[in-house]
């Protein structure tokens, strides 16, 4: 039996109950100690030469103009459902259980369309800025391309993401169908403030109306202060032109705000004194509370986190060392810490936050876990730099009720059963 050459403690540091280890374990090279000598593979004596596969001996396939994933990665795909009687009205969801890092590939960014994906000729597209301005202006894409650009790495989350957790019983589903209305990309474009300055803001203006060029004319009112702040007219998504499903040739990006307000296919910004009270900001994206009153203009997405691995569909293998990985984000700023529990919230360990940790972007967290093969309940809890702590599901529902489908940001739980099956549970 081989011995560790470096002197290591016999037990790696336990950070919390049920096998959670110190977050620095992977960074400090303590993996060998954590695994221990028992993890030596049993089949080490099977002496068979490693195969020389066909692709090692013949030239590969030719160039293609636009690259695609491996055909073996075909399951790394969105799932979607359309409203009955339509083909492009509904939502698609990002497969976070099969992804890592912080950037969502463009072909996997979640979608929510209210009347399909318009096929916009960029030469015919116009952005109109009018209303309470000194000079109403209309821009072509070519004109905007000459403006100074800025990038923001920002998440976009549908306000209806994780809505299933308002239900009384846990939906027997995984990360993608439950939490897949969240994505994160590098968005590049022109500051809205620059264009509003071009037009000259009338001091009476306090709001903007943003409107899309799609057949539903999706429209939302947004406070002028946000438009004059970090808002962008985004033209690029992860370095390439914004995808049609995300607003080609241009979309509004309001970092941290609920997805619906980030109007795609942006064709018009009207400056107004008050909100226009569009269909979506009155009848849809409002939170009906237990007292019968509805919260309106809940723009920023609250601090939240979810474990992406392990998660339902990713059955555990043999007992031993695993990495718990997940995403945390806050529409109010930057993630300050993420804690992970393997015992349903009885004890918590600090997770490692992967750099970069950016405001209004998802932060990847990781936590080493030695699974003993027994039952476990995995949870994550995010805290942002304002000090806000992600609440338990029961506290969120106690405070707000469960008569809405919007802005669920409570703690989610994955149950690991004896034998390794992972299920969505309430804990």
């Amino acid at each position, binding site marked *: 039996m081989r011995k560790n050459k470096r002197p290591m403690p016999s037990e790696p540091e336990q950070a919390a109950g049920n096998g959670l280890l110190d977050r620095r374990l992977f960074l400090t090279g303590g993996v060998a100690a954590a695994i221990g000598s028992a993890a030596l593979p049993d089949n080490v004596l099977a002496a068979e030469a490693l195969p020389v596969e066909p692709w090692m001996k013949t030239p590969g396939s030719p160039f293609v103009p636009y690259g695609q994933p491996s055909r073996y990665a075909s399951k790394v795909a969105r799932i979607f459902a359309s409203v009955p009687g339509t083909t492009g009205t509904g939502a698609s969801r990002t497969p976070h259980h099969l992804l890592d890092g912080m950037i969502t590939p463009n072909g996997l960014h979640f979608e929510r369309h209210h009347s399909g994906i318009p096929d916009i000729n960029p030469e015919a597209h116009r952005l109109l800025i009018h209303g309470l301005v000194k000079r109403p202006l209309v821009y072509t894409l070519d004109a905007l391309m000459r403006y100074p650009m800025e990038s923001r790495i920002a998440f976009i989350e549908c306000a209806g993401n994780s809505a299933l957790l308002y239900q009384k019983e846990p939906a027997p589903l995984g990360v993608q169908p439950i939490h897949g209305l969240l994505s994160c990309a590098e968005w590049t474009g022109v500051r809205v403030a620059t264009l509003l300055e071009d037009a000259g803001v009338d001091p009476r203006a306090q709001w903007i109306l943003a409107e899309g060029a799609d057949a539903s004319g999706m429209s939302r009112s947004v406070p002028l202060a946000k438009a004059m702040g970090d808002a962008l007219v985004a033209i690029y998504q992860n370095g390439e032109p914004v995808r049609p499903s995300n607003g080609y040739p241009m979309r509004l990006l309001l970092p941290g705000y609920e997805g619906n307000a980030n109007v795609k296919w942006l064709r018009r910004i*009207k400056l107004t004194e008050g909100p226009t009270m569009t269909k979506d900001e009155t009848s849809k994206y409002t939170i009906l509370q237990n007292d019968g009153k509805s919260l309106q203009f809940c723009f*920023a997405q609250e601090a939240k986190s979810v474990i992406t691995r392990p998660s339902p569909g990713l059955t555990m293998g043999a007992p031993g060392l695993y990495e718990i990985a997940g995403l945390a984000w806050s529409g109010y700023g930057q993630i300050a810490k993420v804690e992970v529990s393997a015992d349903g919230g009885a004890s918590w360990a600090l997770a490692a936050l992967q750099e970069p940790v950016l405001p209004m972007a998802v932060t990847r967290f990781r936590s080493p876990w030695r699974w003993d093969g027994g039952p476990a309940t995995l949870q994550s809890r995010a805290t942002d730099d304002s000090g806000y702590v992600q609440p338990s599901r029961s506290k969120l529902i106690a405070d707000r009720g469960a008569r809405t489908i919007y802005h669920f940001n409570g703690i989610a739980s994955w149950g690991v059963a004896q034998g390794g099956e992972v299920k969505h549970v309430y804990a």
Partner: protein
Amino acid sequence: MSTRNTLLAACSALVVGCGAALAESPNLGKAASPEEIASWDISIGPDGAGLPFGSGTPQQGEQVYLAKCLACHGEKGSGKPSDQLVGGQGSLGPGQAPVKTVGSFWPYATTVFDYVRRAMPLNESKSLRDDEVYAVVAYILQLNGVIGENDTIDAQTLPAVRMPNRDGFVRFSRGK
């Protein structure tokens, strides 16, 4: 101080916490005339500003509804496969199963006009004439008991309609 500088100062006062100075603009927007703007300026706020000429009654609206809306919104706005438009008043209170419709939930009648004109019918949005929009809005409001059978909806009467859930909304603030 130039107009531009005044504006910049005003805006930086407005945008608390946004430190980055605005980049110099190449000013490449083209002046948009009222004639150019008119066809796109379709949003209607609660004050009704911008509502077009025209009118409609519930009776006229029923004909539009039967032809254009029934297949998705059901008989007399009963819903299925798409949203229920009628009923549910009084269902928002504590302990009840909320039924959110135009009549029970929508705070402004102007929103109905705005949304129908821009987005409905789903497969041929922006196809209804303004009179047809007024009429079908009148029909939905009348089915909900918000207006009478003989009322007419137009640019003056629509913003004056008081929706049952008008006071049912509170502005969100964090931590509340």
